[in-house]
């Protein structure tokens, strides 16, 4: 289940890409989910746990992948109980947040209204108001009512 909370909260990592650089595990990089996310968002191919082939930057390390994908990988694999700031993710990450939320209980923190319009059908629990939303229209209506950012 995907849970969304807007505004400043305890136990949140404000800049997940930095946290990722210092906490990621090699096996996260070669997980099939990561391979797909890196391919879709960064247009890059995972060669090994230590090497990614980027069409723009050439051969890069996992520390050079996009901040959005780093945040998604933390959401998918980190087990510290931290809540990650999904405002580090572009709108092109929204469908992957929904996908990770289907696989596990996922709480994300937002400091802006992420555009989930391309994420397909999804349900989420809006923790600021306690309301369950179904789909993008209900999400946006509820998000606009919430004042916390």
């Amino acid at each position: 289940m995907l849970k969304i909370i807007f505004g400043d909260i305890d136990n949140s990592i404000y800049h997940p890409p930095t946290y990722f650089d210092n906490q990621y595990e090699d096996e996260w990089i070669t997980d099939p989910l990561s391979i797909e996310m890196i391919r879709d968002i960064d247009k890059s191919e995972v060669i090994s746990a230590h090497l990614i082939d980027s069409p723009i930057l050439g051969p890069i390390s996992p520390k050079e992948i996009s901040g959005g994908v780093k945040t998604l990988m933390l959401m998918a694999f980190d087990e510290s109980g931290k809540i990650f700031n999904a405002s580090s993710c572009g709108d092109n990450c929204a469908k992957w947040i929904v996908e990770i939320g289907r696989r596990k209980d996922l709480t994300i923190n937002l400091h802006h209204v992420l555009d989930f319009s391309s994420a397909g059908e999804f349900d989420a629990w809006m923790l600021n108001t306690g309301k369950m939303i179904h789909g993008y229209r209900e999400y946006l209506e509820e998000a606009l009512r919430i004042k916390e950012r």
Partner: protein
Amino acid sequence: MKGKYHVMVQNNRIRYEFDIKRNITIIRGDSATGKTTLYSMIALAARLGDSSGIEVRCEKKCRTLDDLDWKLILPALHDHIIFLDEDNLFIKTTEFSRMVRESDNYFVIITREDLANLPYSVEEIYGIHAAGKYHGTKRIYNEFYHIYSFMDFPETVKPDEVIVEDSNSGYDFFHSVCDEHHIACKSAGGKSKIKDALQISNQGNVLVIADGASIGSEMNELFQYMKLHPDTKCYLPESFEWIILKSGLIDGNEVQEILSHPQDFIDSQDYFSWERFFTTLLIQYTQDTYLHYSKHRLNEVYLHDRSKMMILKVMEKIVLGD
């Protein structure tokens, strides 16, 4: 600082080119478009110079600013273009907003957050996209694009209801025009309340009129609202005063010359955002004339038929009435 500056940043693999022309520019957009790479390249070039292997070409010095010592560094910087990345929590603070207001630097901020404390223009919110390879080399050429590029309406807009951002002279004008044509018109009472006004509106085609020069912090949410409500449109001129200046009501070529490249006349240290400059300009040019302008209450001269027609003519493709 005033003026428009071309910035070119490149290494062997990637090249960015863009123009900066206001005190605040925002970069946002999808992940993996090269925002952080641009920031890192500017940071490295500022720190290591030629040794970085990164070339930065700009008439003004470009540099970055960090969380750790920004309060000490910023007051000492003058005439710089300063780049800030999204990991800097201080960009949301009122203290940073105050320092930007007093600063003679331009700021380029990479963030998806709205930053309600900063009055930035809808025109200065950009994404980055790859425009191809540079002259057949392996170097990828990146440029900025407007994220919210819907200022020009493809078809005529004929609203059933008008929501005006402010409650001053601009509202007086539009309320009077709408009244004549039996169009509902209300004031949102400020840019942050436009969304609330929209949510209690059920009037078919709704037109929002707001100051484009400072509406930036509302754009992400307004844009998404409009995607779900295609009958809602936004008309975002710089400001109501800009429309009057543009209309030609004020004689002389000088005003039109200023409007054609305002960045060369607006000092960022004097004007936090451009709409304040246009208000000052209009007041100055109409002082002691029959067109005497006040921000708080509309001079009725602007509602006379000739004035009204000239002002409305500036609003291309918008029909208020029959």
